[in-house]
């Protein structure tokens, strides 16, 4: 009978390893954040500083910038592991693969979306977003970005076997990202018009609950298929 590490211990080891890897390649890891910062900073410059118009497009701009920033690093989620054989070893480890993928997705979210989430008040100020919209915006981003990472992981797992799959990945991921974007920025737009916005937030929360359970399992199956 082989011993298996507890799920907690294996997740902690994986988390430490992945975060250490991110730190060693921090230049690459910064890229999505810089991308989002650039997009958001360029809009006021391109459109002029008319605060009414900026305030109107602000929810959409913020959401699109965060979504595309997450998409940038999606392709690298499993690729380096596939290339150096770490993925084989993960598949052979006694810990369920879906659990390890869930940990990996958590790292992806922590590295790409969490810093943007923390910077959101600054971005909102830059785009003259009315103060009362901060709450729905933060709710929608906090629930929507992990959902994007989870959905993205399934697509990344499906395409990792294909070389230069960047374009395919985007084409496959974007339609799946659309509902998240619609509900996410929709909640903020509804709030700006004085309409109730909790419905969209609840839908995002329900989607997140579903994806937390199902996406790692789907990604694990996809990775097994990829390797064969």
């Amino acid at each position, binding site marked *: 009978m082989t011993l298996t590490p507890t799920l907690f211990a294996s997740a*902690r080891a994986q988390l*430490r390893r992945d975060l250490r*890897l991110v730190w060693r390649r921090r230049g690459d890891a910064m890229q999505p954040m810089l991308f989002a910062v650039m997009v958001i900073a360029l809009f006021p410059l391109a459109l002029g500083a008319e605060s009414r118009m900026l305030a109107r497009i602000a929810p959409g701009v913020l959401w699109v910038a965060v979504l595309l920033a997450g998409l940038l690093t999606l392709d690298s989620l499993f690729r*380096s592991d596939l290339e*150096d*054989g770490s993925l*084989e070893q993960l598949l*052979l*480890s006694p810990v369920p693969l879906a659990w390890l993928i869930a940990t990996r997705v958590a790292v992806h979210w922590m590295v790409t979306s969490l810093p943007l989430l923390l910077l959101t008040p600054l971005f909102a100020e830059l785009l003259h977003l009315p103060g009362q919209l901060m709450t729905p915006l933060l709710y929608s981003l906090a629930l929507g970005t992990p959902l994007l990472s989870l959905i993205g992981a399934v697509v990344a797992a499906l395409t990792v076997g294909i070389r230069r799959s960047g374009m395919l990945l985007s084409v496959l991921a974007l339609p799946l990202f659309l509902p998240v974007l619609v509900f996410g920025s929709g909640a903020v737009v509804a709030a700006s018009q004085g309409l109730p916005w909790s419905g969209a937030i609840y839908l995002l929360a329900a989607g997140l609950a579903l994806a937390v359970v199902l996406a790692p399992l789907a990604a694990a199956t996809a990775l097994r298929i990829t390797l064969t």
Partner: protein
Amino acid sequence: MNHSPPNPTALLECRGLSFSRNEERIFGPLDFSLGEGEALQVLGGNGTGKTTLLRVLAGLLAADSGEVRFEQRVVDQGHLARGCAFLGHLQGHKGELSALENLRFTAVMQSSQIPPERALADVGLAGFEDNLARRLSAGQNKRLGLARLILSPARLWLLDEPYANLDLDGIALVNKLITGHVARNGAVLLTTHGAYAAPPVRVRTLELVA
């Protein structure tokens, strides 16, 4: 179908195992068994399916037909994966992490009782603990892979070309590890494309032809 009773001491037993890719038979059907304390050397030229056979046995690929018994029980792909340690062509560790960091990760995942530092010393990498794996030579990376085997509690070792990239010392090291594992009633299945190196234990051979 062959209905002879399973070999009582066999750790791994394959019946009619075959694998095809795009309707082209890669190997098989193969019948063989591997007992406790035994080493089986899979011989064959390039492209005869040695690596594929190992990947099927490791549970990384699904066989077309045939059954595999592990510890007397018929197992599926997922169960195979958890009972064996696999050393493949790819290094299987991160170039951006140091040798010791890589092994510490393996030690947790395999819940190993052996300290990673000792495993590193056992494969002759003492003093290289803090070197990033990508700065190590190909042979040293192979040794790091061998250290992973030491940490694994698996009874079945699947070694794909374990002698590749190694110097004479390294070959002796592989032989020492295999001898030790076999002496602890483990089983080893290894591939080589030539007979230039073989472990100094009772070895049976399985020859694959294209």
